[in-house]
């Protein structure tokens, strides 16, 4: 499903310095895999996810998603593809503060041509129930705990029935107990829907939730424990 061939990504920072965030990276991810990516801060994990989603483009090499170089598509097709195929869980709080839980979950339906209207609302409510937030449908993000917010984000990521779930440190702000709850949720979702999952974390303890572990260091895949 995902194929990276000798991919490098260099960010040019203001001035003339540049940061090599991903270094000559090659990897394949098959449909239905649950890949956990670990690595220290700055090792290029977020950049890798951005490359897979076509949100950023490689300086060299080739990134394919179902055989397509997403970042080369026109903005409209790129957006539609992301909207239909990819669910995102971000590293930072990403709920719109002015929208309720249900409205946040409904957000992806605004941009695509998938389910709409009452049926989409029913699905949003169903998803929120699935992540255990039956009683928080009309709550605003500020009324939710960090773990609850992350659950809403996960429900939102699932709204358009994606084939790929990209989760960037979904548990970084949570206590250990909640962390495991959320990871269990991902595992259930994966088991239930068969969605391909790429999940970034810097906690090695969570490796067991996935079907495969990839370690990153200095922008490259490494087999060494650091």
């Amino acid at each position, binding site marked *: 499903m995902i194929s990276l061939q000798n991919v490098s990504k260099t960010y040019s920072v203001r001035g003339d310095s540049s940061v090599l965030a991903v270094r000559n990276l090659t990897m394949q991810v098959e449909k239905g895999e649950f890949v956990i990516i670990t690595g220290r801060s700055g090792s290029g994990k*977020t*950049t890798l996810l*951005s490359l897979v*989603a076509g*949100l*950023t*483009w490689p300086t060299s090499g080739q990134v394919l998603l179902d055989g397509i170089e997403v970042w080369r598509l026109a*903005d*409209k097709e790129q*957006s*539609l593809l*992301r*909207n*239909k195929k*990819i669910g*995102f869980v*971000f590293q*930072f709080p*990403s709920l*719109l*503060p*002015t*929208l309720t839980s249900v*409205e946040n979950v*409904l*957000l*992806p*339906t*605004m*941009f*695509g041509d998938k389910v709409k209207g009452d049926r989409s609302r029913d699905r949003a409510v169903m998803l929120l129930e699935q992540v255990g937030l039956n009683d928080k449908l009309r709550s605003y993000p500020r009324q939710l705990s960090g773990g609850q917010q992350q659950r809403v984000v996960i429900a*939102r990521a699932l709204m*358009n029935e994606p084939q790929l779930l990209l989760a960037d440190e979904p548990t970084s702000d949570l206590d250990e107990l909640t962390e495991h709850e959320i990871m269990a949720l991902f595992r259930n979702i994966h088991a239930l829907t068969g969605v391909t999952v790429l999940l970034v974390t810097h906690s090695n303890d969570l490796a067991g939730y996935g079907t495969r572990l990839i370690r990153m260091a200095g922008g490259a895949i490494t087999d060494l424990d650091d």
Partner: protein
Amino acid sequence: MSLLVLVLRNISGNLFRSGAIFLCASLVAGLGLSATFVVRGAETGLRQNLSRMGADIIAVPWGTMSQDFDGAHLMGMMTERWMPRAYMEKIAAVPGVEATSPQLYVSTWADSGFTTRPELYVVAYEPATDFVLRPWLENDPIGTLRLGEGVAGAAIQAPDGGQRIHLYGYPIHLLRSLEEVGGDIDQTVFISFETALAILEHVQMEAQPAFEINPHTISTAMVKVRLGHSPHDVAVSILEQVPGVLPIESTGFFQTQRSQMVGLLRTVLALSGLTWMLSLAFMGFAFTLAANERRRQIGVLRALGATRGLVLKTLLLEGVVLALSGGAAGTISAVLSAFLFREQIARATDIQYTLPPPLALLGMVAAGLVLALLSVSAAAWFPASRLCREEMVVTVRE
């Protein structure tokens, strides 16, 4: 959920910034409209005041005894000098001259009995080109004067409360009385040149004519100077370009008032222009802040599948909603304040602060809204479009 909901939530989500932009939009629209009202009112007032002040310059035959002129040039001099009517065209051709109208002093009549004042003056004027007397007949303008018709100064009374008087035996039907002006004009009977000719002929038939003048001459050319030209310069030009004519400027009083008005108008325009520019700068700043603040949110929307165009649309729509609502508020308060405080404003500024007729008002309101809309859109466009072009990973990062 629609785009508009998202936009409205964004607006209500940051009430302070939204309020500030709303205020700017209302300021732009409201001040623009108020300035238009002021300029319009001042223009009307200025026009009326100036027109009631008579001529800026009166041009008399060379050699006329210079008399002291205080106040308005409402009528020519009562002197026994005349000049050819053809001078009118030469004067009209002088740059800066907006209008000219001839007057002919016919005679002075002592103890006429039609006025309590010692003298009555008879003056011929040309109703078609006249701009001096017309403002004093404003409420009841006359088109032309027919043979034997006249207009009387305020101090002139026809006998027995009627409208007929006799000038040197010639019957004159007094169509109308002028408003009281104060000065010679109140004791003057104004007639057309045609009637003056008839009176002259009538007088010549008598054994001892009371007076004698060439009816094809004039005694004064009343001159109106174009707004923006200095009456003094125009007077000098007349002196140079029309030999045989002595231009006499109106006293400074009216010029002072006029330049005060012009100064006030300039101030109003400059102030509203300044406010507009400041608002624009402020709104641009506010939108840049908003865009930066929402950098992440925009990254999220893009990752969830919003196209660049859609993100731009939400940002601009936010501006449009604020512009239209703020613009409407500003417009309404401008119209309301013009309506409620027109008298106070008029008294304080000497400007007739009146609402224009409905259709013109509608046009101005629309223009005010469009101005607010354009301003806000311009302010929102730049930061929004710049943000939408950024590489996404940048926007997703802190």
